[in-house]
């Protein structure tokens, strides 16, 4: 039984390293140690947010989605990935599993590159929080209550 988790872990680390072939063209690579630490962050996040994962693949998906972001360079690559992984699992719970992995990652990427302009804090505290609330109340993920009001305010300025 002891060999069971480490075997899965090794497989996950290998899969992450394979992503380097794809990300290298964006100037981003991960060392084996980085990959091991990312898997550890995933395990810790799963434990912290009371979730279990059988297949792997979420880290790979995050890497492949975010590698072309203009706000990610080799300097902040690993750190950003750690934060994105933790945020991902937190919002899987917050959205009551109403959104699929792919949709959530896509939403995170669009917000990160768009409204948040590369700020993880804005992504987590504002955009994803709003999206999770929308889903819980039965609205579309990008629904905004004050979009109409903002337009009116802008009109008032002129």
């Amino acid at each position, binding site marked *: *039984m002891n060999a069971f988790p480490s075997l899965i872990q090794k497989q996950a680390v290998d899969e992450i390293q394979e992503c380097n072939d794809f990300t290298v063209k964006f100037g981003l690579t991960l060392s084996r140690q980085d990959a091991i630490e990312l898997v550890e962050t995933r395990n810790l996040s799963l434990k912290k947010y*009371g979730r*279990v994962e059988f297949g792997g*693949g979420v880290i790979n998906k995050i890497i492949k989605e975010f590698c072309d972001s203009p706000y990610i360079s080799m300097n902040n690559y690993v750190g950003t990935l750690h934060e994105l992984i933790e945020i991902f699992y937190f919002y*899987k719970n917050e959205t009551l*599993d109403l959104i*699929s*992995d792919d949709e959530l990652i896509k939403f995170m990427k669009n917000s990160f590159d768009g409204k948040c302009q590369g700020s993880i804090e804005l992504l987590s505290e504002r955009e994803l929080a709003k999206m999770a609330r929308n889903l819980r109340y039965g609205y579309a993920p990008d629904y905004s209550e004050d979009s109409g009001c903002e337009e009116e305010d802008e009109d008032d300025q002129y």
Partner: protein
Amino acid sequence: MTNIEKRYIIDSNKLSGESYFNSLLQEAYTSGLINQSDLENIQLQCISLLAYKSERYNMGESSSIRVETAESIMKSIFYTIGLYLKSLSNSDYAITKLKSEKISEMYERGRKLIYSRFREAKHIYEMVLSNRIETLNHSYNSTLSENGIGIFFKSYNIEYEAYDIPASIDYQLCNPVNDLAGIEYIQKYLENLYLENVFCINFATDSIHYLLYGYDKGYPDLLVNIFEQVLTAALGCSLANRNIRELYISQEDIQYLYEKLLKYDKYTLLLNIHKAAESIFEEFYITNYLLKKYIEKSLPKIATNIEIAIRLNTLNRVFITSKNPDLEPRIQFKSGVKMDDEEYRRLIEELIRCRYTSDKLELIKKKVKSFDDLEDILIDAQLEEDEFISLFNTLGDVEIAAMIKRHPFEWDFKNVNTSEAEHVLQLYLESYIKQLPGSRRECIFQIAEQLLEVDAEI
């Protein structure tokens, strides 16, 4: 020595009916039928089956699930495999299967078994609906309704929550279903209920109604088992040589039974009750083996109730005297014609302006001619507590009883929306009643029970 049973390595009495798979594994491991490596192999197979089921649960859209969901799916897998293993001839054979068959194969067999049990349970539910008793008892009716057990057949999740019982079941059976879960529980519950109904429909609806009314006037709202009351009364009738079909035992019969049963020891009492049950079988030509078994299973419980009642001299709480509510004495109460609105308004204004209690009482005495007006004044005239008490002192027992009936101070879900003024009236009325001598209080409550309000002539 009528039965010679083969002895098995695993003691089936130690196995749990609810979590059969887990207890079987535990027992098998303890008795050495499986070793550590077998156990690990089973665990690994269960985890991969859980991974497969979790993926299906997420429809491939999410790679992770909440721990609680995973636990629930795992519990469902264990329950399903347990159901299959339970269906095998004995527990030793179940272990052999467990070692030789794949977990996923056993799960599939269990799933098929649940599907067929589900169809069976649905059929029994329809049978129960067709032989249901006509009764006012709310828990019985609501349990049998579409919103009671009916929910189960719409919400039961065989794939992921097979161990769950998504139904609203309030009605208590005479022989409750223990140590079962999921479809097994529902099936057993419905089987027992069906047998209870089969027995009860031998009696007239009115006889059952009168019996339960004699048990408690509020029986429609009670969690009372109808079968148990009917069977006890039928046994009582048989023991007292009364007509079993009528379910009527008089107070004299109860006294006779008390004197008769007092002489018996526990064994003789049970023997006599069994004899009485035999006479019931004969009377109604009961030949159904399952029904006979079910009734016999209920007898020790009834015998214990009788035994305790004899000891405490409360046999009249076990053998109930039927009561026809239509034949109960009634006191008709007519409020009288209400005064004109304008005149009432003037009176209220005058009462509010008036400073002295004696003047207020005099005014009320002089002007108020109907009970409805008096009640309105108590609510509207903003009287003080001592004024209330003085006013109540001028009323007779019937008027007080009528006031209690209209403003019951015992909490009732029907009067949650009472106004503050009405609540004040209830409080003063309660404190007034409490300071009355016990005999008068009882008399008032008795009148309140028998009171029948008749609409005032307009």
